[in-house]
């Protein structure tokens, strides 16, 4: 074989080997970069989960302390005041009688408040009963009518899960009372084989001129568009085939766009691996739907 041809053959073989190794190197590099990215994301999500959990624990502890203070301190003072009024010389006085009744009502209200603030209460009574108790309290005010519906076989969920769910429901109810201008609130529990669907529905004014809002992992992957100054992300959700406004990491500090309460609800739901949807239409009420997975360990 001619030496010049041999040189060309050598060059060809060398070029093909170089190309081969470049491709292998690129694939390996990409693989490593991807692994690094996944690890980083995992660490970040673990960190934010821990942070979230700590925040909630602190919140619960604070609520517990407030609850104890109400019960042990203010409650006791009021009880003493009631006792003094009862043993007062001017017991025949109408005003004293009225005061006695008012103090009695204040003691009862504070006791109720103390109960709902305290996590132990939810642990003792369970989620369903605690929500029922809360609804009864709202009913008692006479401002709103409430109803509770339970569908399916009731499951006893993990205590922590029940507490978090209770707090989400509480926040929803609080929103209904404060913002919705509603006359009726319904809470629905629907126990399915692997899911619990918990809905809080009101007939109020709604709060966004969109069909509904959703916060779930699927919508997080959707195409992002910037809208006005609120930086809301509007995405087309395949699942619901409708316009969706979603909350994401970028605008989580924008209370102008979403209230702190909704963010807390969303964060709490994330902790449970649950999805939170808020369907709302102007003047057509609001529906908050929490979809929680039920594990095998939870008794149904």
């Amino acid at each position, binding site marked *: *074989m001619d030496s010049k041809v041999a040189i060309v053959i050598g060059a060809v073989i060398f070029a093909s080997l170089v190309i081969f190794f470049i491709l292998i190197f690129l694939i390996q590099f990409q693989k490593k970069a991807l692994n690094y990215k996944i690890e980083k994301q995992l660490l970040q999500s673990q960190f934010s989960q821990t942070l979230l959990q700590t925040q909630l624990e602190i919140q619960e502890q604070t609520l517990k302390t407030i609850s104890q203070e109400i019960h042990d301190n203010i409650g006791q003072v009021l009880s003493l005041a009631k006792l003094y009024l009862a043993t007062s010389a001017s017991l025949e006085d109408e005003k004293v009688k009225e005061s006695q009744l008012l103090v009695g009502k204040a003691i009862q209200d504070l006791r109720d408040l103390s109960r709902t603030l305290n996590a132990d209460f939810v642990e003792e009574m369970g989620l369903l009963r605690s929500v029922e108790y809360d609804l009864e309290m709202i009913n008692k005010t006479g401002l709103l009518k409430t109803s509770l519906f339970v569908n399916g076989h009731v499951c006893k969920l993990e205590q922590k899960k029940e507490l978090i769910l209770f707090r989400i429901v509480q926040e929803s109810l609080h929103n209904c009372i404060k913002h919705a201008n509603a006359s009726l609130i319904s809470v629905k529990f629907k126990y399915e084989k692997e899911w619990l669907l918990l809905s809080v529905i009101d007939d109020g004014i709604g709060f966004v001129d969109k069909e509904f809002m959703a916060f779930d992992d699927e919508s997080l992957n959707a195409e992002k568009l910037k809208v006005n100054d609120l930086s809301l992300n509007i995405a087309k959700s395949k699942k619901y085939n409708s316009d969706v406004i979603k909350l994401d990491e970028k605008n989580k500090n924008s209370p102008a766009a979403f209230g702190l309460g909704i963010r807390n609800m969303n964060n709490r739901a994330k902790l449970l691996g649950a999805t939170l949807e808020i369907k709302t239409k102007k003047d057509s009420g609001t529906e908050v739907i929490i979809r929680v997975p039920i594990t095998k360990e939870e008794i149904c």
Partner: protein
Amino acid sequence: MLNRIIIYLDIIVPLICSLLAIIFLKNRRVKIHFYSLTLLLFYILQFTLNSIANILQELETNNLWTYHLNSLFTQIIFSVYFFFFFKNKLNKIFVVLSLCVYLGFFIYSFHFLQKAFTFNSFSYAFGVLWIIFFSLRSLQNIFKNIEVEDLLNLKEFWIATGILFYFGSSFFIFLSYSYLSKQAYNSVGILWKIHNVFLSIGCILFLKSIISKKWIQK
């Protein structure tokens, strides 16, 4: 026997690959992707021109003009592919410009350097350089956007790999063929056999691209 097969590999492999691709696309009953169409066109081009070249060689007639056509059409096919692959306007302009420069050089070379009955080493190698450059650029784009699990099912990745393997390896053959066919006529045949092997690898990689189900969405 093996020697004979290798000589005709540049006809056999494009033919088999194009048939397999057509069967596959027909069975899948989906809209044929533009990239697959480009590759099918490349198979047909290779099959047609290489068949003509081989027939002419059997008839002991000069067949080198077919390589001028091969280089020209290959350049056009892959320029069209890269034009549609790149989303960036600047890259698109660059592809069009490179094609214009190539065409200018092709015409110049055809008239003044290596005419119809001489192997077009210059224009072939010049065109191949552009194709390699754009395939590397496309690989860079792919690696920037795609995760590795998707990579091996991605049409564009296999096209770029096929281009790099075939054109990258054959570059020195194209560049030196005209010179060596004068200097070492008796042993230059082996180079074309090596070329045929790389063309076959390239065709198989292109077939993998046709079979692959994913592509980068615009």
